[in-house]
């Protein structure tokens, strides 16, 4: 990557991906006040589903189908986690914290066993191809794929914004995130809203997982905490942007994306700092301004 233009382009593309990665996490925290440590596992589920559907050792369908399947599977896992476990312990935040932590690792190990022992694929390197893998109109394949990520990211964020601001269900989500009691007073069923939120968040995570694995040239069962560590990234982004604010998450994603890319490009020996820079930025933020940039405002 030479020059400032290249760096800005790279940063823009990667930030768009980071935004999708973080948004599901924000949704769940905003509505239920649950810090979902299983978010990374949902992302991993998306990548593995894409591998099963579209790789040669799986069903060998086109990757677009894999992207759809990964998104759906993410939604199923998200809803399943909520309905199967979280629903019963929603009133006990610490238990929920530790549970999501354990559930996340449970899912990751299950995927590892699935890949290694049942499908005979190396779980550390599962093949997921980029959504667009051939160049057109004189643009290279990877640039086109980045463009696809960028466009789909903004389309999805736009759709989500529209959903929470202009539909009854979406507004109910905001209501629950602002006040449980108030929402129930006006007749909103918080249980239903929670299921919808977890499903949405899971879908976003699954989608992000397929894109991320495609961009990295493959996924792994540890992709949640291997660089770029989507689980930690989500945390970082959400803290930077302010907990529970969708707008904040998008802004936070771009801050982190740009900070990371510029560190790698313009600091001597920057490539070694790839994993650390965003974490360091997050720590500084935590100490200095823990409420984030857009602390606690509902999505707009």
């Amino acid at each position: 990557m030479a020059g400032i233009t290249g760096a800005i382009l790279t940063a823009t593309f990667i930030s768009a991906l980071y935004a999708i990665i973080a948004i599901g996490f924000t949704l769940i925290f905003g509505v239920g006040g649950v810090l979902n440590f299983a978010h990374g596992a949902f992302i991993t589920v998306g990548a593995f589903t894409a591998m099963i559907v579209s790789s040669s050792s799986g069903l060998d369908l086109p990757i677009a189908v894999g992207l759809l399947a990964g998104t759906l599977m993410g939604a199923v896992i998200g809803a399943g986690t909520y309905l199967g476990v979280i629903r019963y312990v929603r009133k006990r935040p610490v238990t929920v914290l530790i549970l999501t932590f354990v559930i996340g690792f449970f899912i990751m190990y299950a995927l590892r066993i699935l890949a290694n022992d049942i499908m005979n694929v190396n779980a550390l390197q599962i093949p997921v191809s980029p959504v667009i893998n051939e160049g057109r109109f004189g643009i290279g394949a990877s640039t086109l794929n980045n463009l696809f990520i960028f466009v789909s990211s903004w389309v999805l964020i736009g759709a989500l914004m529209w959903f929470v601001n202009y539909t009854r269900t979406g507004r109910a989500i905001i209501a629950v995130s602002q006040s449980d009691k108030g929402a129930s007073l006006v007749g909103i069923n918080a249980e239903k809203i929670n299921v919808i939120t977890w499903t949405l968040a899971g879908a976003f995570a699954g989608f992000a997982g397929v894109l991320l694995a495609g961009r990295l040239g493959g996924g792994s069962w540890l992709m949640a905490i291997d660089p770029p560590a989507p689980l930690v990234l989500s945390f970082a982004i959400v803290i930077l942007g302010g907990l529970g604010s969708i707008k904040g998450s998008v802004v936070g994603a771009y801050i982190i994306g740009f900070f990371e890319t510029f560190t790698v490009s313009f600091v001597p020996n920057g490539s070694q700092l790839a994993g650390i820079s965003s974490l360091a930025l997050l720590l500084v933020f935590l100490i200095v301004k823990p409420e984030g940039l857009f602390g606690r405002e509902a999505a707009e």
Partner: protein
Amino acid sequence: MATQNPLDGDVQKRRKQAVKERLKFGNLPLRHRLGAYGFVMLGLLPVILQPSELLNFTYVLFLMMFAISWDVVSGYTGQLSFGHAFFFALGGYGTAVITTQHNMPIFVGIAGATLLAAIGGVLIGVPALRLDGPYLSLVTLIAPLLLFQMFVLFSEGLPLLAPQGLGGTGGLTVQPPQLVSIGDGAFITVETTMMESLGRYYAAFIALLIVFGVCYAVTRSSAGSVFTAIREDEDAVRSAGLNPAKFKIFAFVLAGAVGGFAAAVWMHVGPFGYPNTENLFGPGKIDLSIEVIVMAILGGMGTIVGAVVGALLFAATTALVGWLDFTIPVLGLEFSALSPLPEFLLAMLTLVFMPEGVVPRNIKDGRKLLARYRGEAPPEPADADGRSASESVVSKYRDEIEEIIGGDNR
């Protein structure tokens, strides 16, 4: 005795008498006696185990120490730590670097590593003063990941501190000198494998006694009461004229020192004492941190004893899963290949159905049984309006989260 005023007669003698009374084994409450029996059993375990089994069980002793280290800070003060491996890694790497790259004796290595991990405790403890529940958990989650990156960054060498580097993702490959071993270069050289495993086991056992003793003493002292008070209500602690910040940092430093000490001893006791990211962080970088939490939760948070029992339960489940080698019909793979899924499942079930943990639950049931046996009325729980450790941690967190997301003010 009771009619005398406290300063009558030979005060010294009466004090001695009172201490003797307290120390009479028969007068101890049943649960304390059971605990003492348990430790004696642990000490006599080598009588019935093969050397290879003994080596596996030695690791369980270290797991107990790790779980105790988590319980001291998170179980007592309610500051949840999700990255306790940070301290273990500091301890393990610290002693390895001191002994192999600076050629210091073993005990200097262990002391230095304990100190290093204690400093790590300060590093985590200081943010704990500014940050509330979930934010702090985040910092603790990131700390080991940052440390991991440091190992990669300085894999070639860290000037002055670690001239030969920190080994990157693979870890250090030079084995630290062993306390007890057949090979040369050990602190105590022995002849047979049996003696070697015995020596290793008892070295670990002594370390466990030290760790347990220190943590038990601290948590049962007035400092322990303050820890619990911090968990319950920080403002109340402040209003009593105590500084919660001091005690929080102390809790983190103690936990760090204990965890670092345990990991350092582990490096010198073996059986595979190479400090690498695999065994100090876990293959998934944060597995060990999770396992420690799972163990403490299984046994019961905020009890210290619970951490020991929880580690035993966890290890027993792991052993059981490994031993069940029937084939699962649909998937066509052996049940033992499913590890660690069953252990995690057990932890989830405990969290949902018995959040207070095994030890407090059994003590409660045991009290009822004893009362029935003696023909007394069932005891009113001592803390009839009090709350169990996990309950109060939970409510503390709920308040903090609601403060952050601006929930309803109750």
